């Protein structure tokens, strides 16, 4: 299963990369860089200059940079879609007898196809905020399933022994709750952004700090829940890394990743509150959150894994 595992990890990492590009498209305002779907300005490769536009298209709607950003997003999306499809076919052909690999593979392939179609709805809705958030949540679901497949392939390969780690049962619950909390934080974050964007729509000339003043309670809820989650995460990490419990290789690595992501996330939160909402800090904030929830997901299922082997 070594090759399959490699493929599953590659697909997972590519999906994370795609989530990053997707966030970048969002903050660049390039979502409508191509006003049509699946083609871009009526052709499969977007125009390189305004002169190549078909005559029926108003040249004022064309922005070379935005069209190409959106086009690269679509290309990357298609590549990742094909990777996921290949992974699912591989699982169906060779790992039919392993339900823990087969079932998530059977779910992830149609979900990815749905996501592709939903991408077209995002474009035709002219970037309705709720529809973009749905696109984001489905992406998180897809990446979670891919992580689960990779993890199962990994555990199949290393044939984990029952004595590998010795955590108390409670810590598994902590990891699960924190994973849920991370997902809730992502959703709260998209709510905050929506509130921000609708305020900006009504007050086009306000600066981001002025806008922040007129936004309701969501601007307190998101950072407060975040702070709360961060404190519990520090506790979780301290337990996970304690040598007393002999952490497994994977848990040890993931706990360090979690610490790093936590520091990055807090730093980004402070930067955004003090230095304004720069496009790139928004993307990194959301992307770090999606990585963080992925790492928590790995930790949760690794802790469960041990229980099942016993």
């Amino acid at each position, binding site marked *: 299963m070594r090759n399959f595992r490699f493929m599953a990890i590659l697909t997972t990492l590519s999906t994370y*990369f795609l989530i*990053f590009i997707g966030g*970048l498209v969002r*903050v*660049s*305002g*390039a979502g409508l860089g191509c006003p049509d779907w699946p083609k871009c300005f009526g052709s499969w490769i977007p125009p390189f200059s*305004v002169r190549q536009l078909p005559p029926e298209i108003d*040249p*004022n709607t064309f*922005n*070379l*940079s*935005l069209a190409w*950003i959106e086009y690269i997003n679509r290309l990357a999306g298609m590549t990742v879609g094909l990777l996921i499809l290949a992974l699912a076919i591989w699982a169906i052909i060779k790992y039919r007898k392993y339900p823990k690999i087969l079932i998530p593979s059977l779910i992830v392939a149609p979900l990815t196809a749905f996501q592709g179609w939903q991408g077209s709805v995002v474009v035709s809705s002219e970037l309705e905020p709720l529809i973009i958030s749905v696109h984001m949540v489905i992406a998180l679901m897809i990446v979670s399933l891919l992580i689960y497949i990779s993890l199962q392939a990994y555990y199949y390969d*290393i044939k984990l*022994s029952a004595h*590998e780690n010795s955590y108390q049962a409670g810590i598994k619950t902590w990891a699960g709750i924190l994973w849920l909390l991370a997902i809730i934080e992502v959703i709260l974050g998209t709510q905050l952004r929506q509130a921000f964007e609708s305020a900006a729509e009504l007050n086009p000339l306000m600066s981001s700090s002025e806008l922040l003043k007129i936004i309701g309670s969501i601007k307190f809820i998101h950072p407060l829940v975040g702070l709360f989650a961060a404190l519990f995460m520090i506790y979780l990490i301290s337990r996970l890394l304690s040598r007393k419990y002999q*952490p*497994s*290789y994977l848990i*040890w*690595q*993931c706990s*360090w*990743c979690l*610490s*790093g*992501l936590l520091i*990055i996330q807090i730093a980004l939160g402070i930067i955004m509150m003090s230095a304004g909402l720069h*496009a*790139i800090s928004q*993307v*990194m904030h959301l*992307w*770090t959150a999606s*990585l963080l929830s992925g790492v928590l997901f790995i930790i949760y299922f690794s802790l469960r894994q041990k229980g099942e082997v016993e």
Partner: protein
Amino acid sequence: MNVNKRYPGFLIYMVGAMIILAFLGALVANQANKSRTQIPVWGEVPNFIFTAAYNEEPFGLEQLKGGLAVLNFGFTRCKGPCPIMMPNMAELYTRYKNSDKIRFVTVSVDPEHDSFSVLREYAERYGVTDNRWVFLRAPVEQVAELCEGGLMLAADELPMGHTTKFVLIDDLGQIRSYADGTDKSSIRLLEEKIKILARNI
């Protein structure tokens, strides 16, 4: 199983990848933001060949390309808007004296009276000392054709009915903006566009 537990490799790779992506992402977001300040293309200047007063040699679209140009129409006997418009053009000519990225063109709508020598004298009156500001002469029908057909500006009953618009033409010979040559605020906006377009030359 103890696979070098003391070395948090995942974390190092992850942070490395994040720094690279953050950098690339910042470039992309910046480019997207910049592209939004883009100035639309109104159309192409059609090919024309007139004659420049300073050397009495052909001057047309080919000579305009490669740099920005601000073009207007006028005539030396003009008593109406020209005494307001021409000093504004002269002001631009002086403002950009240290740049070879932009030149100025005035097309005479009264070629009967405006001979090359009359135009040269007129240029001198506005302090023109080099060929960054050229004065062009051509048969009045061709001037009307360029003005109405090419630049989409009014040219009724020349010379009196000439336009007072300044036309901003880019290095590819495309029309990028118009300004009211008698209105300083309109010209200030034109200067902003000149600044943006000049970055790409």
